[in-house]
């Protein structure tokens, strides 16, 4: 599957070829494209991305994401495998929006 990545702040774009069963993060590492990540198991949300087009499935439950995040289109590239060609917004800026300052 083809995965198109875009970064909000820099406008950078990359295209990855993702093998069957491979996660987006694994494919990015093979291609030498650095994405933020932490636990690599779906618990921490450091790699959080926004799904703009296409479908992915998570190979483990995405525990870092609440229902509202899933409804907003957040996915976790460390455990997400594309079901179709997809377009994702990636990079640290996506994680920064995941949980805003609750008091401000």
């Amino acid at each position, binding site marked *: 599957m083809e995965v198109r990545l875009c970064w909000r702040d*820099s406008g950078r774009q990359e295209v990855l070829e993702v093998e069957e069963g491979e996660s987006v993060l694994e494919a990015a590492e093979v291609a030498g494209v650095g994405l933020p990540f*932490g*636990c690599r198991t*779906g*618990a921490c949300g450091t790699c959080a991305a926004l799904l703009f087009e296409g479908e992915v499935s998570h190979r483990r439950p995405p*525990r870092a994401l609440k229902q509202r995040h899933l409804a907003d289109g957040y996915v976790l590239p460390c455990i997400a495998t594309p079901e179709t060609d997809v377009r994702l917004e990636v990079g640290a800026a996506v*994680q920064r929006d995941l949980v805003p*300052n609750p008091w401000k």
Partner: protein
Amino acid sequence: MSDAEQSGEAGAHDHHDYDHGVEGPGYATPQAAIEEAEPEQTAYVMGLHVGQDVDAPDFLAVVDVDLDSDTYGEIVERVQMPNRGDELHHFGWNACSSSCHVSGLERRHLVIPGQRSSRIHIVDTKDRRDPEITEVIEPEEVYEHDLSAPHTVHCIPDGEILISMLGDADGDLPGGFLELNDDFEIEGRWDPPGEIDMNYDFWYQPRYNVMVSTEWAAPKTYYPGFDLEDVEAGNYGRSLHFWDWEAGEVEQTIDLGEEGQIPLEVRFQHTPEGAHGFVGAALSSNIFHFWRDDDEWRVEKAIDFEAREHDDWDMPVPPLVTDILVSMDDRYLFGSNWLHGEVWMYDISDPANPRKADSLSVGGYFGDRQEVGGRDIVAGPQMLQLSLDGERLYWTTSLFSSWDNQFFPEEAEQGSVMLKADINPRKGTMRLDEDFLVDFGDLPEGPARAHEIRWPDGDCTSDVWQ
């Protein structure tokens, strides 16, 4: 001075139950640590790139704090971890004064966990200014014990190492404790599963056969960021657990209530006879004093920090007491109010009645000082470390990458700083050292965060005495 030489000097010490013809790491007593310690020349500091668009691993920073050096206040070496994404956070030594009767053991290896990765690194500091990674315990080995998210590292007597683990292999509850042997291999899970749900920091006091542990939340709860929904749902902790240290079982759990939400750093007095300690309830921004009363532990709120109104905030800003430490002479409790931008010291010579000695207003949302030496601070004072003689307090400004993003988003772009205050323990005063600033924002790979600080010869948050 090497650790071996150090323990040689301290080798003739005597205390309690042990034959002190032998030489081991550390100091015979807290007072011996104060007397024998040279002013620190090197600081080890956790440096982070996790969660940034910086394609580089986290690192151990070696910071020159030798006043006579040409590179004073600079990062003189960085030991990069073998993988990205660890979130280095807290770390500890393979041995401390708790093993001072164990001959042949040295305070030499740092145990450096990745909070997000659950990977554990062993770093040899034989050459203090050029440490090297010697072993790596991979996450899969940790998950085999149904544990994840390593946090506090304490060496325990006889060369073994105990690490608080905040979650199970899925990043859910319960957490527990992982034990390493003196070859840095996983010995196994220390506690029977089910003794506790939430975990965070711990400290032990052998003469009372007690360990005390605190509560943050499940990793899957705190990792992505601080969500008030989780507080309302009871997903954050508010209890202290007092363990039978020998048996490894919880004997007493105390619910601190609404005023004790998110109890994080916990410190016993250093004197091995000390039956008093303190815990900072970060969210409620209160300090609780705990003490032994006959055969049970009791807890009472001892310091209450008030929230403050801020024009840009819908709610009053809580101070968020994120770190505390006890001076080696047990005379002062130091702490940081991360959001407000305050570092404080309280006289705890009467532990039940802490008396404010002094404070500094620096960084955060209300600090009088927002820059040092022309560098914007962009966050509040957070992890603290005090010299063994109690005269120099250092701190860094990052709490946790995802939480930093919520409360001090500029820190991602500017990086953390390490600052210092000069303390007069006789007068109970503190003064910002205007000439000291270590800039973690100015590194070749990009800006970095900075977290816990340690000295090679032990510090005020590492050593325990038997």
